[in-house]
């Protein structure tokens, strides 16, 4: 069947901000989908609140709405754009849930909008646990015994049957949010309550645990003619009990006989038919009992998922693109396989390599949170690697993670002997892989490790092979013997760095030894068909084999280093920049070569760049590619800290670095050189010093005066950054939080309390500097810039200050010799401008600024790096938009039981949203809605603020009272408010309530509070005392502010919301690309 001609306009819903469980894979799927639909001549209307996405670039859709992803906002967009159909399967759980809500509230019917891809019935059957169970029983498939609970009583009744440990899964949530494993009766009750609260339907499943069973996933596609194909099978290294997003996963499945695999395949096909997914991709998870092969269905996602992204990258089969084509009526046999060009998409990819994905975690960001892995996803990113064997791909994936491991090093801090290892093996944690290897090293048997961990003996056998080989390698002393082992080591994925560790020599020496032997990797192609047909797409990975298929061109070419796995502080924004650079350079006729190892991204799509190397971003791996490709230059300033930290060594190895020189980068990063630069330019910075020991730190702090801001040099995302108020905390910090040393100094700054922070992104071609945007932070200095909301244009800065900022930015860029992008952070205190830091690279705000001003900064930056001047590019003037754009951060607190929601200098957000409107208050209000912090227009405000904030909060609270809000406050705050003639209901602080006076948490839990204003002194005791108040607000979904500055913006936003309801506008309209 060819494309449907009865459709003109298609509404595509994106996935919103990056959160745990829903990351940039949905930018990959959405942008692929939009591109495919537009190619076919459809008019595409896109809604997504996340500005850091490629899909929200104005050229990816006919109309792009960066607007709240709510029924209200979507209804307005539908009313304006009148789409014929809605495609809900490319935007993750967010899009699916929104589509259901739009249908249930009658919006779709009212405007005559039909769903394509999946109908409501199918979504319901797949997502509703009870309906899913019934459907599976209809086709004779088993699920783990379970029951569906609407209340704790229900749940207790069910668990009597199903037993402890029990898996608790809330309905309609994403990434297993609210899910847990109850190992005891005591845990069970609270876990069920938590799950019921997390489910938008207030329901959950209580399920017999199949902990320890093997876990598999199949990626399935179906077309309108009922053709079904399996794109990829995935086997989890971690057994059932660990969320698949948190598991190490491997493709293809490794420990199934064909008989078992085909039974699973049959089941998957029966499931997609029974659930009734019309077209597109679904992801189906199975558990298999390792003892007897019994198989149960775990769950199904009737949409493109995180695993689809992984499967696409693992096979080369573009699932999202094909899903979009199938949704508009094509059948699989009508769609061509881009890679082979000759064969149709109606086949099942065969792969002649092994893919390993390892998740990346961020537990270190959340003090007090247990790092145990359960059925609720907690990882923030992932790295994927391709090797010819599991051993090779595993070792490549490890070094792709950038967690300071180059292989299966012995974990630190594990007690000696085997006994000491068991707890690290019995309980799944991020480091279990290394504990397993260590156990094998210490002589543990595979059988015992399997029993304890559930990790299949096949995987353990591979680890054992690696550990044994490692022992052989370590024993190889002397050059001749090392040379004899080198090829075997490289074929098994050992990095030069790891070999250096084993041999007690430098990485560079291993490299020299290897090259002297002519031992270099070859590059093989990912081609969907195991070389059965010729591949026309240069999607490559390295391995140590005989034949190289790289076939580099003789064209003018540039290599772009990507950002590696997502983590807090370095996420989709940097991928956005890399992708833009690739687009711009390709347009300019320059061949682009992308290097990255993050399967979620658009940059690792095989058609984003001319050539894609899916490789770890280490010095060794990058140099190897440079040797094969010989690019005219390498771009390191777009992928965040990952490529930047390679810059100096790449340059030392003779690799031409495009754009700002590594020396300039060093000049901005090196504290002493930087200070000299500022002195030269006559710019001010907060008084500061450097400490290489606790003693030095104390001396510096003494000189500067407390509070001081301390942090290790060379970090991104504010890792280990703290505001320290006294000597005792300073010493604790120096001793525990960081291990300061001469090579790794700690920076100590005077902390400018209550300063306004400002971020600036600018472009410089060496002659001219153009500021892209000045972002005024909403939260005061001290909150990490990535966690702070900010506004373009600045909403309160004076024109003098703005002029000073512009001048300082120009001076800095020219003096440093920036070629490309630069980011500067300033603090403004009493009209004085202090330079906090300069980063001569793309920052995480580049996509936001680009969307706010309607100019693609990253593209321009890339072209400048490749030699164009800003004048040639027509970007010579700052743009002062007439609308306000507010960026707000989105946090993963809800995923981490016990995490505090207070903001500080350590970045904790995973994603961002953007609110655009003609007025600041409304733009801020939109950003809050998008961030899930929907502000009330009436109700009760609970105020509990530290004494020094009370006077400042008084006037804001007075405004709220004038807007008819009821007031509730803790005793101290209440006294201040009363003294200001405000009527207030007094409540006790947490845990201090009694019969007469309820405490704050009780009031929140009783649903009496609609907004929380809570600030707290930074001493740990005060923080601890009030943590449950914030936690409670978070869990009950009550919007909250933890800084006075945010309250100020919030009050303005509430006023705007009261005045009129919020409208929607497309980006194309805002940028004047189309008429209003």
């Amino acid at each position: 069947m060819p494309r449907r001609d009865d459709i003109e306009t298609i509404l595509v819903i994106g996935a919103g901000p990056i959160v745990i469980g829903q990351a940039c894979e949905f930018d990959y799927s959405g942008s692929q989908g939009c591109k495919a639909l537009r190619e076919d001549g459809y008019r595409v209307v896109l809604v997504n609140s996340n500005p850091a996405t490629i899909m929200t670039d104005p050229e990816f859709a006919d109309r792009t709405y960066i607007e709240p992803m709510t029924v209200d906002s979507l209804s307005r967009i539908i009313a304006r754009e009148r789409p014929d159909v809605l495609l809900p399967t490319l935007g993750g759980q967010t899009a699916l849930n929104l589509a259901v809500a739009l249908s249930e509230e009658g919006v779709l019917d009212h405007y005559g909008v039909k769903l394509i891809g999946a109908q409501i019935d199918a979504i319901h059957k797949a997502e509703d646990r009870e309906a899913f169970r019934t459907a599976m029983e209809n086709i004779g498939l088993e699920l783990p015994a379970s029951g569906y609970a609407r209340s704790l009583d229900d749940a207790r009744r069910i668990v009597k049957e199903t037993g402890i440990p029990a898996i608790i899964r809330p309905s309609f949530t994403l990434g297993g949010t609210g899910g847990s494993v109850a190992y005891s009766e005591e845990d069970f009750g609270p876990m069920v309550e938590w799950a019921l609260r997390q489910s938008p339907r207030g329901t959950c499943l209580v399920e017999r645990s199949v902990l320890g069973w093997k876990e598999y996933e199949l990626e399935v596609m179906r077309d309108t003619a009922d053709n079904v194909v399996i794109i990829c099978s995935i086997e989890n290294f971690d057994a059932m009990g660990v969320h698949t997003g948190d598991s190490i996963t491997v493709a293809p499945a490794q420990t199934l006989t064909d008989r078992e695999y085909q039974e699973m395949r049959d089941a998957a096909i029966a499931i997609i038919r029974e659930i009734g997914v019309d077209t597109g991709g679904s992801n189906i998870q199975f558990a298999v009992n390792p003892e007897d092969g019994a198989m149960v269905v775990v769950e199904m996602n009737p949409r493109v998922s995180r695993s689809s992204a992984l499967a696409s990258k693992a096979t080369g089969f573009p699932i999202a693109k094909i899903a979009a084509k199938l949704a508009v009526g094509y059948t699989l046999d009508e769609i061509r396989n881009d890679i082979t060009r000759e064969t149709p998409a109606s086949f099942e990819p065969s792969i002649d390599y092994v893919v390993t994905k390892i998740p990346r975690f961020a537990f270190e960001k959340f003090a007090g949170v247990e790092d145990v892995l359960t059925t609720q996803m907690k990882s923030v990113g992932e790295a994927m690697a391709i090797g010819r064997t599991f051993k090779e791909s595993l070792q490549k994936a490890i070094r792709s993670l950038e967690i300071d491991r180059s292989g299966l090093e012995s974990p630190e801090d594990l007690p000696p002997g085997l006994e000491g290892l068991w707890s690290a093996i019995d309980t799944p944690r991020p480091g279990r892989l290394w504990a397993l290897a260590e156990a094998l090293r210490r002589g543990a048997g595979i059988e015992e490790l399997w029993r304890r961990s559930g990790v299949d003996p096949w995987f353990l056998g591979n680890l054992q092979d690696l550990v044994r080989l490692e022992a052989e390698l370590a024993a190889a002393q002397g050059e001749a013997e090392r040379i004899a082992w080198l090829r075997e080591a490289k074929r098994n994925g050992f990095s030069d760095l790891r070999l250096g560790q084993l041999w007690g020599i430098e990485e560079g020496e291993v490299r020299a030894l290897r090259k002297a032997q002519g031992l270099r990797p070859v590059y093989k192609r990912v081609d969907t068909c195991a070389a059965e047909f010729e591949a026309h797409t240069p999607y490559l990975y390295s391995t140590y084999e005989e034949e190289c298929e790289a076939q580099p061109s003789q064209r003018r070419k540039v290599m772009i280093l990507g950002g590696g796995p997502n983590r807090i502080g370095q996420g989709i924004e940097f991928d956005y920049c890399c992708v833009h650079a690739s687009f711009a350079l390709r347009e300019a006729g320059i061949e682009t070569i992308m290097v990255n190892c993050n399967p979620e991204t658009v940059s690792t799509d095989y058609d984003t760049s001319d050539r894609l190397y899916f490789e770890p971003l280490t010095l060794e791996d990058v140099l190897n590619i440079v040797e094969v490709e010989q690019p005219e230059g390498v771009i390191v300033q777009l992928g965040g800290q990952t490529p930047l930290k390679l810059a100096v060594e790449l340059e030392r190895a003779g690799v031409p670095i495009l754009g700002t020189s590594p020396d300039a980068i060093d000049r901005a990063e090196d504290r002493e050189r930087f200070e000299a630069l500022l002195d030269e330019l006559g710019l001010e910075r907060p008084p500061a010093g450097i400490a290489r020991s606790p003693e030095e730190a104390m001396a510096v702090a003494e000189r500067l005066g407390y509070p001081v801001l301390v942090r290790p040099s060379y970090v991104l995302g504010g890792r280990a950054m703290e505001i320290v108020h006294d000597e005792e905390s300073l010493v604790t910090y120096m001793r525990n939080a960081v291990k300061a040393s001469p090579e790794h100094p700690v920076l100590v700054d005077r902390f400018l309390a209550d300063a306004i922070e400002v971020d600036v992104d600018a472009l410089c071609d060496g002659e001219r500097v153009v500021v892209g945007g000045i972002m005024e932070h909403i939260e005061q200095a001290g909150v990490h810039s990535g966690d702070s909301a900010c506004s373009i244009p600045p909403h309160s800065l004076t024109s003098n200050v703005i002029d000073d900022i512009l001048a300082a930015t120009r001076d800095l860029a020219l003096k440093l010799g920036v070629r490309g992008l630069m980011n500067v952070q300033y603090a403004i205190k009493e009209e004085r401008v202090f330079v906090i830091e300069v980063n001569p690279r793309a920052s995480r705000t580049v996509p936001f600024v680009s969307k706010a001003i309607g100019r693609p900064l990253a593209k321009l930056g890339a072209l400048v790096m490749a030699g164009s001047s800003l004048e040639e590019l027509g970007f010579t003037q700052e743009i002062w938009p007439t609308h306000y754009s507010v960026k707000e951060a989105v946090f993963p607190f809800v995923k981490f039981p016990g995490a505090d929601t207070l903001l500080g200098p350590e970045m904790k957000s995973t994603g961002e949203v953007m609110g655009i409107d003609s007025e600041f208050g409304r733009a801020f209000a939109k950003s809050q809605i998008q961030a899930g912090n929907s502000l009330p227009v009436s109700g009760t405000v609970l105020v509990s603020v530290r004494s020094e904030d009370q006077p400042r909060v008084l006037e804001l609270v007075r405004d709220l009272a004038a807007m008819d809000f009821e007031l509730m406050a803790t005793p101290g705050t209440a006294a201040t408010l009363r003294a200001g003639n405000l009527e207030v209901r007094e409540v006790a602080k947490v845990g201090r309530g009694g019969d007469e006076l309820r405490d704050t948490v009780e009031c929140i839990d009783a649903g009496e509070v609609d907004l929380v204003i809570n600030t707290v002194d930074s001493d740990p005791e005060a923080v601890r005392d009030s943590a449950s108040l914030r936690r409670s607000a978070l869990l009950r979904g009550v919007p909250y502010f933890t800084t006075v500055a945010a309250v100020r913006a919030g009050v303005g936003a509430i006023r705007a919301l009261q005045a009129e309801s919020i409208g929607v506008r497309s980006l194309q309209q805002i940028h004047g690309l189309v008429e209003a």
Partner: protein
Amino acid sequence: MAGPSFPPACLALADGSVYRGAAFGAAGLGVGEVCFNTSLAGYQEILTDPSYAGQLVAMTCTQIGNVGVNREDEESRRPFLEGFVVREVFHQPSNWRSEESLHAYMERHAIPGISEVDTRALVRRIREGGAQCGALSTDPRQQDAEALVRRAAEAPGLDGVDLAARVSCETPYEFSEGRWQGIRGGVPAPTRPDRRYRLVAFDFGIKRNILRLLVEQGFEVTVVPAGTSADEALALRPQAVFLSNGPGDPAAVVGVRDTVRRLAESLPIFGICLGHQILGLALGGRTVKLHFGHHGGNQPGQDLATGKVAICAENHGYAVDADSLREAGQPVEITHRNLNDGTVEGLAHAALPLFSVQYHPEASPGPHDAAYFFRRFRRMVELHAAGEPVTGAGVAASAAGPGD
């Protein structure tokens, strides 16, 4: 000087390319046409598929031996191939049904194997240069590359060699094992319809799963040697005939064409793979050698009647030439095609109850999408036995495809 030590193995192709690796399985020499298989699972079924007689099989899947070997998954009484070529082989299998390592199994059956080979490079060579012969030595005393290249170049190859006779059973036997239900172990009891039909299955290298699926469809199966004459077959009073898969060049399987023509006069016939090609030849068509054949579990087979695409297990190096059938003037319809290269994958006669398929609806290994052929065959035999007019093309057209 110490270094990693492997038992040496060498694979040489007729074109002079040489691949060195590590030996596993039996020590010895294997000479045959080199083909590659792209299946991701089921190496044991591939190993024991008699259709690989005379061939050296390279697996594109790089991790082989993971699940060991078990008796249930054997597709015939032993492996018939000449040698096995893999990237990495595992000696410590992990699967609840595993009884033996792949290495031990191949050693027991005197099959040489080579691992640590750049199998992708090998595949690309075959893809570019077409099928050719190779010589695999796992004998430590016979590692001279030049000598092996010569062996490969001198090898007769598959063309014109009647390999079916070599792998066929020697005497007729009955088969009554039913279809596997799920993956639980043990010999499955037959589950079949009440009304039974006597069937003679010609063994050109038949796979057990074909027999199981025939039993499931209610056939009382007698397997007969490839050289069985029409009279001998008719003496068994069959109500239907099945022509099995098998190795090598269909044109070289002598005598069978006449037998098939005789049987076709009175009986419904279903052929798979080599059986399909033999039926094509019996009808006056020609077969052609493909550049490097189809060997894998991911091939798109389209049913032209319904337009539906089944993902198929395929294993053949020859195909029926569509034009030759037209030229022969037989009322034969092409019912299925491979969407990758458009080759003929299914035939049905418009006047007689005959049809055949090039790929493997019995799977094992591979997807079950095309299992409908067995149901279709049963329906054709039912109608024929009831004296109704039925043709291969008729049942193909009336069928609804994979779901029928």
